[in-house]
């Protein structure tokens, strides 16, 4: 495995769990460190069969596989001393507390670097380690608002809306994993670690598709629109009604996208569902003609009506078959249940069955985020139970005795 032999201490809160899981998927030995009694994430719903319990949180299950887990009370000096011993030998530390929180406990980057200058220390925060908004309180919605994406989501006649499943910190976590590996690559040359500072605000900004640049370059503003976007004066629908639900379909112009529209209109014409003049438009130049007024906007709206009629008459699966056969840009809008049934993911054996005692069986997880020819991602472990690897780590690695362990447990340090 690519990161075999790399030790990661995962101190993250609910914000940062995915980062460590990615490194774990790549073969690193990731140790999730939880307070005695278990991480607060374990009390976050939804729960398996909707029954709360520290081993039943689906939130916890989602982003802790392939990790080992220990408990350690970092509020006590004894707990912190144990963490420093572990950190002295770790390649990575990942944390997602508010800026300064770990510093108050003597566990900030400068504190741990003293014992291990080669360490890569990754911090994931809402707005970054310092600056005028570093102390802001946040949530998924707040980050989406600050990052320039929320304004682009929703219906133009109503307030902007976010995605119904939180996304902000997932973007930040994958950036954090990429940054950690760049820093680790630097260490292979220099022997030195460094501090990686990831701000979720900047991470989610990527999903605004460069529209945050409109202001400084004096470009047209992009505005939200239900099922699409308005770029300057042109309305671009991406979601369309099919007979039994919805499809996403691209209906655009220009040298790159126009040819797809031409193929689509060829097909519609072939079915006798539009006239020759409509079908024969110059789809490459059409956008420029709209902007210059050579084609009126009402003509574009009429075209959209022709397409809408074509799509509405057919089911999602009929449209997808047509798209596959004729290389058209149409795909069904899937539900979560549809995704689990998608023949592509099944054929590629994407879903990974992970045993889960609480589930009384197994559950399918999203599989490898990429397929590596020489060093494939492996699914070695289900998410750890509270303190599951205490003995392995404290006795096996730090040389404590059973009595030491019992003493730490009595003092509620583990």
């Amino acid at each position, binding site marked *: 495995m*690519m990161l075999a032999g790399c030790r990661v201490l995962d101190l993250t809160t609910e914000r940062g769990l995915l980062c460590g899981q990615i490194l774990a998927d790549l073969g690193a030995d990731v140790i999730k460190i939880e307070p005695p009694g278990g991480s607060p994430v374990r009390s976050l*719903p*939804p729960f398996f069969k909707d029954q709360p319990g520290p081993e039943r949180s689906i939130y916890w299950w989602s*982003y802790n596989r392939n990790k080992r887990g220990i408990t350690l009370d970092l509020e006590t000096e004894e707990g912190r001393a144990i963490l420093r011993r572990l950190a002295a030998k770790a390649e990575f530390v990942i944390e997602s507390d508010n800026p300064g929180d770990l510093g108050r406990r003597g566990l900030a980057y400068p504190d741990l670097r003293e014992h291990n200058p080669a360490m890569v220390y990754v911090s994931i925060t809402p*707005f*970054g380690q310092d600056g*005028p908004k570093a102390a*802001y309180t946040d949530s998924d*919605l*707040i980050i989406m*608002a*600050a990052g320039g994406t929320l*304004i682009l*989501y*929703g*219906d133009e006649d109503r307030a902007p*809306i976010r*995605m*119904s*499943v939180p996304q902000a910190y*997932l973007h930040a976590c*994958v950036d954090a994993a990429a940054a950690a590996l*760049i820093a680790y*690559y630097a260490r*292979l040359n*220099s022997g030195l670690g460094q*501090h*990686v500072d990831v701000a979720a605000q900047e991470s989610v900004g*990527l*999903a605004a*598709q460069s*529209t945050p*640049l409109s*202001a400084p*370059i*004096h470009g047209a503003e992009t505005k939200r629109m239900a*099922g699409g976007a308005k*770029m300057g004066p042109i309305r671009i629908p991406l979601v369309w009604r099919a007979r039994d639900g919805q499809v996403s379909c691209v209906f655009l112009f*220009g040298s*790159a996208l126009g040819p797809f529209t031409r193929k689509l209109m060829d097909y519609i014409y072939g079915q006798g569902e539009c006239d020759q003049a409509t079908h024969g438009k110059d789809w490459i130049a059409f956008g420029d003609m709209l902007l210059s007024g050579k084609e009126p906007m009402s003509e574009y709206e009429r075209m959209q009506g022709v397409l809408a009629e074509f799509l509405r008459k057919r089911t999602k699966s009929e449209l997808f078959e047509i798209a596959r056969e004729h290389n058209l*840009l149409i*795909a*069904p*809008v*899937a*539900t*979560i249940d*549809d995704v*689990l049934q998608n*023949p*592509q*993911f099944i*054929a590629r054996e994407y879903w990974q069955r992970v045993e889960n005692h609480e589930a009384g069986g197994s*559950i399918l997880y*999203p599989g490898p985020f*990429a*397929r590596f*020819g*020489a*060093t494939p991602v492996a699914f070695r472990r289900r998410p750890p139970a509270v303190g599951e690897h205490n003995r392995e780590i404290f006795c096996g690695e730090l040389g404590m005795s059973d009595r030491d362990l019992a003493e730490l447990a009595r003092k509620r340090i583990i």
Partner: protein
Amino acid sequence: MAELPLKDVKILDFMWVLAGPGITRMMADYGATVVRIESVQRTDPTRTVGPFQDNSTDPEYSALFGNNNAGKYSITLDLSKPRAREVVLDLVRWADAVCEAFSPKAMRAWGFDYESLCKIKPDLIMLSTCLMGQTGPLSRFAGFGNLAAAMCGFYNLVGWPDRPPSGPFSAYTDYIAPRFGAVALMAALIHRKRTGQGQYIDQAQAESALHFLTLPLLDSQANGRKYTPVANYDPYHAPHGVYPAAGDDRWVAIACRTDDHWRALCASMQQAGLAGDPRFKTFDLRQLNRAELDRIIGEWSSGLDSHETERKLQAVGVPAHAVQTSDDMWKDAQLHYRGHYVQVPHDRMGRTYVENSRFRLSATPARVERAAPMLGQYNSFVLEKLLGYDEDRISELVVDGVLG
């Protein structure tokens, strides 16, 4: 100045559109030499998509292309010409990694598939990224990130309960896949540096993106729960919403997770009765009566400046932020503090802006100094400086139309 971590890494980049070039942009930020192959006949579609500098639709003026390709070199090649193939193979010998983002059959058709390229460069890393992956019944289904996002379930998660789903903005998986692609490429580079072994990587953008839906995918199996769009409802926060502010299409987001947040919000609103109002006394009641609560907050916020509300609420510890437009982002004090916007010189536009790397490395920070390449701008640099071709050889390529 510290050496950039990837200064020895050479990447031959057959990427185009969004998801692929985003990966190599990250590599260029940290010092990799990235050479893009571009086609004059089939230009990168993002050159035709805005935002455009000064609203010009000149293909060199697209900030979307500019932002995704800053710091790279490029060479324009007509791959239908046999001699273009020789140039590509020399670039493969030069490179540590080849990255491509075509639909699966394209590289094979040119003879640039991993097996063929490995014969001339045994320790090559090759990353292929496409919508659905190199194998499987839908491998040939090509398109943009909106289609993958629809098939992954993202479209069905944005919307109002009383209307059909409206979907996320544009090509959502194109903003997830590049980060995972960068992770994959970095992992392979680390493995190669440690062992000398290269490898092939097949990234299905949909398979990467599904990691952002693990929670509903597991919940659906464990509890049979159905996921449909719920606008701004959130199970852990109440009130939780986007409220009108003074001005046209101006909004402020507010999210109260705790009773403290709620009480501080009431105090800021200067509505003394609200905190004690029996309809909103507990979290569960605030959740139950959220329609009425949203109306009351909206009435208060609608006359106020969104930034003012943000500052006022943050000052008392309530999660709040103006819903930022492009203009707000540009004026955002935090983004400026972090150097998010970077001005770079550009041969045609004079100067332009790109966004900085999205993370900060304390010892080896990103260096973003060059704009994206213009078509053909670096042809002689690549041929002369990187491949060591002499003047005669380069003029032959020009005469033969290979660089077209």
